């Protein structure tokens, strides 16, 4: 009897976040290999968790909640760390019982760029965030964000949160993790007429946010204040309001190739979580649509999450409403493999 060891890390691995919606106290992160089509291992993730990876990929941070009697009893919120070389626990930080409990996204828990801090979003529903020290495993501070939510990390010591007015609040921290300054941006989208999804898509200097109607808002977070690029659209004037993005993880970008992949569907207001019947491919430099891949017509259910590997021979992973995970050649759109059943509700994927 022995215990398997993980092989060396591959860019074609993916961490698949399973929200286990039918039994929400049992979220998991599944590590899957897109070359061998094998499930390599699992990280347990508790109740309505959030997860993220350290900047060097060596650790997984899961922000979660446990109840002392399984489904009930004393509540404990915490961030649990896992050593990604062994998938074994590597410490925890107990939080105040304020952790945000929402659909998986990149900004429920996040590392600073240098890995020195971890930020945990709090919603009670009053909004704030915790600044954590992942080296000494302790909470350093709590920052009130005056109604703005989630933790978008930038640089070694800045955190931005999304406000209901369409602005970004940016808090700068001192060396001890306490607030030293804050700024509020101008609104960069209209939350009444065309809200953006909170599932940001990493770009070189920040994140792209897609709107319900298909506008692309690229935000540069590399400076003291966020900077907003001119907005462009995924859809033509004729398509607008008919074809739109929709999913849990609503886009992914191969940063070197400058290609954006978005699950798109035909539908009206209120269909923003319906998932894509097609995947549309765009060039980030020219904003031109390069391809439409009709995944629904190929027999897949609606695509709810996408992730592309960042290597020169990239794979596109697409998780569907039927717990399928399809693997495509991200350059051609050819489907290389269909994993018929991977978890229960796979709603977010991250590269290793």
């Amino acid at each position: 009897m022995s215990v398997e060891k993980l092989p060396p890390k591959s860019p074609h691995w993916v961490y698949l976040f399973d929200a286990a919606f039918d039994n929400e106290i049992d979220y998991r992160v599944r590590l899957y290999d897109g070359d061998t089509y094998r499930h390599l291992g699992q990280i347990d993730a508790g109740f309505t968790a959030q997860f993220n990876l350290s900047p060097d990929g060596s650790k997984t941070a899961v922000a979660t909640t446990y109840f002392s009697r399984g489904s009930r009893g004393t509540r404990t919120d915490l961030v649990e760390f896992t050593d990604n070389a062994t998938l074994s626990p590597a410490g925890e930080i107990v939080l105040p019982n304020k952790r945000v409990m929402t659909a998986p996204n990149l900004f429920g828990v996040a590392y600073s760029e240098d890995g020195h801090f971890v930020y945990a979003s709090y919603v009670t529903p009053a909004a704030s965030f915790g600044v954590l020290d992942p080296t000494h495993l302790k909470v350093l501070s709590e920052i009130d964000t005056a109604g703005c939510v989630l933790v978008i990390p930038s640089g070694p010591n800045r955190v931005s949160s999304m406000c209901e007015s369409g602005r970004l609040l940016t808090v700068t921290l001192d060396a001890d993790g306490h607030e030293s300054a804050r700024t509020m941006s101008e609104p960069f989208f209209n939350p009444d007429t065309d809200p953006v999804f909170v599932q940001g898509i990493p770009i070189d200097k920040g994140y792209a946010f897609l709107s319900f109607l298909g506008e692309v808002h690229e935000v540069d977070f590399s400076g003291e204040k966020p900077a907003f690029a001119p907005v462009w659209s995924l859809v033509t004037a004729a398509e607008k309001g008919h074809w739109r993005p929709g999913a849990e993880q609503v886009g992914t970008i191969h940063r070197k190739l400058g290609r954006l992949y978005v699950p798109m569907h035909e539908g009206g207001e209120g269909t923003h979580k319906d998932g894509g019947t097609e995947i549309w491919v765009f060039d980030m430099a020219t904003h031109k649509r390069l391809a439409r891949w009709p995944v629904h017509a190929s027999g897949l259910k609606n695509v709810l999450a996408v992730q592309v590997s960042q290597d020169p021979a990239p794979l596109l992973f697409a998780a569907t409403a039927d717990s399928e995970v399809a693997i495509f050649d991200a350059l051609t759109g050819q489907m290389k493999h269909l994993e018929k059943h991977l978890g229960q509700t796979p709603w977010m994927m991250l590269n290793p």
Partner: protein
Amino acid sequence: MRSLDQIFEHSSRSLARRTSRRSLLGTLGQVLTGAALLPLLPIDRASRAQAAEGKPKASGPESCDYWKYCAIDGFLCSCCGGSSTSCPPGAAPSPITWIGTCHNPGDGRDYIISYNDCCGKTSCGNCECNRNEREKPPYRPSRNNDLNWCMANADANYHCSVSVILGVAEK
């Protein structure tokens, strides 16, 4: 299920204990907007809302197509031992909610709906229903159905969701 007045009274008190005055003004106000509507409803409007509950529907409260469920996300309590307005035995209503506006084809009116979660047991798993009319991301928490609205309950586990008519939406 306790009356909504009891629920929201408890909500205000318990949240006041846990939040700063500023955040209470900034966030709680909007989250409880729908709650505040009910006591202000004129009697005739409130009774109209009650009547709307009982009118014949194209589909019933165990169906995701039911008109009141236009912004619900979760398991229908009607399929879990409760009803569209009451929690199953042993579950506890959430004092805080998200709000939707749904069109009732029975009388042609729009109604403001409070979606309370029922809490303290694990996911029911029956009649999953995810509809998102006018639903907004979590930076608009009072309109967001992704948040676990059992978050402020003593037992914060999510079981199922109900839909309670708060009143007629003014045009």
